[in-house]
């Protein structure tokens, strides 16, 4: 394993020092491991808190700022944050209008956020929670852990963040967040595994002509292994899975997301195929993102996330945002 780190144990803290140094628009609480938007809390504004394991950068710290999150809590690599962090963040962004927790649906994230929400509630902060579970590769049922939260997290954070910025009440912000999640679907593909620093070696092995279909964002193997083929065919498999779950139509927000080790030139090739697929289905990619947004350390591969837009969602997507990783309109 070769990684640009000082030690396996200091990965998250060292990265937070870098984030603090690079972004004067953020205030990083190194002790509690919370990335705050400078000037938080904003009186009267609903606070948005998200968090999760590290290794998915720029998610979440890179999405803290005007029009998006008020605080992000990075856990250890691929390990959800602990309640203390989340409580610190929740109290730190509550401007009296309550706080929305944006939680990716993983047992660990759900449990730690749940504890933090209860304890913050005890301290008088009103907390609402939205669970993100957009990954169509995973069977959804009452008897399983349910679908994973992946790329749609970014959509939820951006759109709910835009609404919160207008001064909307917590219930409204939570409502739009859930609506975005319900209208979003994702599917991921890995060309290589990734290497968790503490594990020291790749999370799985993959032959030179094999890929994993239906992966999440934690280096886990996918639902099936398949032979490598051309980008167009891989995209078709991913989009078919999405379309089978929620038929694609109308104005669509699309993200082609790199898993961390994929060159941007390949992501653009993938996007060209995604866009063509949508057109074939009568849908239109009216808004899009192509790049590394919700990553899995050094994994090569991509995920595609779609969100079926409404007028309101499009307006909120277009609203100004000013964060390290997403920035427009300001």
């Amino acid at each position, binding site marked *: 394993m070769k990684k640009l780190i000082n030690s396996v144990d200091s990965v998250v803290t060292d990265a937070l020092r870098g984030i603090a140094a690079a972004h004067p628009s953020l205030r990083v609480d190194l002790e509690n491991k919370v990335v705050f938007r400078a000037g938080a809390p904003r009186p009267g504004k609903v606070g948005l808190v998200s968090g999760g394991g590290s290794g998915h950068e720029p998610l979440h710290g890179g999405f803290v700022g005007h029009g998006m999150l008020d605080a992000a809590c990075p856990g250890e690599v691929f*390990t*959800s944050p602990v309640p203390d962090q989340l409580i610190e963040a929740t109290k730190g962004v509550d401007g009296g209008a309550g706080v929305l927790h944006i939680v990716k649906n993983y047992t660990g994230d759900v449990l730690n956020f*749940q504890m933090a929400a209860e304890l913050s509630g005890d301290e008088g902060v009103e907390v609402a929670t939205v669970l993100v579970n957009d990954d169509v590769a995973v069977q959804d049922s009452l008897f*399983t*852990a349910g679908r994973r939260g992946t790329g749609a997290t970014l959509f939820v954070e951006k759109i709910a963040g835009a609404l919160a910025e207008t001064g909307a009440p917590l219930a409204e912000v939570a409502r739009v967040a859930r609506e975005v999640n319900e209208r979003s679907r994702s599917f991921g593909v890995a060309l290589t595994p990734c290497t968790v620093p503490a*594990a020291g070696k790749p999370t*799985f092995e993959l032959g030179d002509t094999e890929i994993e279909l239906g992966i999440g964002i934690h280096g*886990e193997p996918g*639902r099936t292994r398949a032979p490598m083929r051309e980008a167009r065919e891989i995209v078709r498999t991913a989009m078919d899975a999405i379309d089978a779950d929620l038929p694609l139509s109308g104005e669509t927000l699309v993200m082609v997301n790199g898993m961390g080790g994929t060159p941007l030139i390949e992501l653009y090739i993938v996007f060209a195929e995604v866009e063509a697929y949508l057109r074939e289905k009568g849908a239109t990619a009216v808004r899009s993102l192509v790049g590394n947004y919700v990553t899995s350390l050094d994994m090569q591969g991509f995920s595609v996330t779609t969100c079926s837009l409404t007028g309101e969602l499009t307006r909120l997507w277009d609203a100004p945002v000013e964060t390290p990783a997403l920035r427009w309109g300001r």
Partner: protein
Amino acid sequence: MNTQFFAAWIEEIAAAVRAQRDHLTQLDAAIGDADHGANLDRGFTAAREALAGASPQTPGALLVLVGSTLIRKVGGASGPLYGTAFREMGKAFGEAAEISPAELSTGLNAALSGVQRLGAAAEGDKTMVDALAPAAQALAQAVRDGLKPEEALEAAAAAAEQGARATVPLQARKGRASYLGPRSVGHEDPGAASTALLFGALKAAASR
């Protein structure tokens, strides 16, 4: 079993987790996200430090402190789950200075129901419950059978061990491994394996 005994237990756990850290992580790499060993090592190292700093005076206080520390330091699924288990056990012990095998059994049942309340996993879902539940049952049976404390802990450890091994052929229905669907079959559940470690450490603490 007094406060010192439970402190020894935590020492034994911390040592066993350190020794098995990579093994647990590798189990987690196969069907999870390759952090279970690191998570528990971080957690029990912190728990040991917390105990050294606070010197709790009763078994109950000690276990509640361990549980809270795990919740505060581990993260992931195992942090809240193990943290709750230790806290519930500690709360069940109340102010008692000495814990009998019967009280330990009550404590373990409280731990199990805490884990199930939080995680909603049933036996057979391929989680730590698959080691914790049989261990709790074996201890209860041993108490009913009037076995000596060492024998009772031996029985619980064996049951946990066997429960962990029995997760291999199961398909996961809870936790990260469930995302793999049928591909989760054929691997031991890391949380069940670490639960077996915990009971092995309990046995070791008793024979100190």
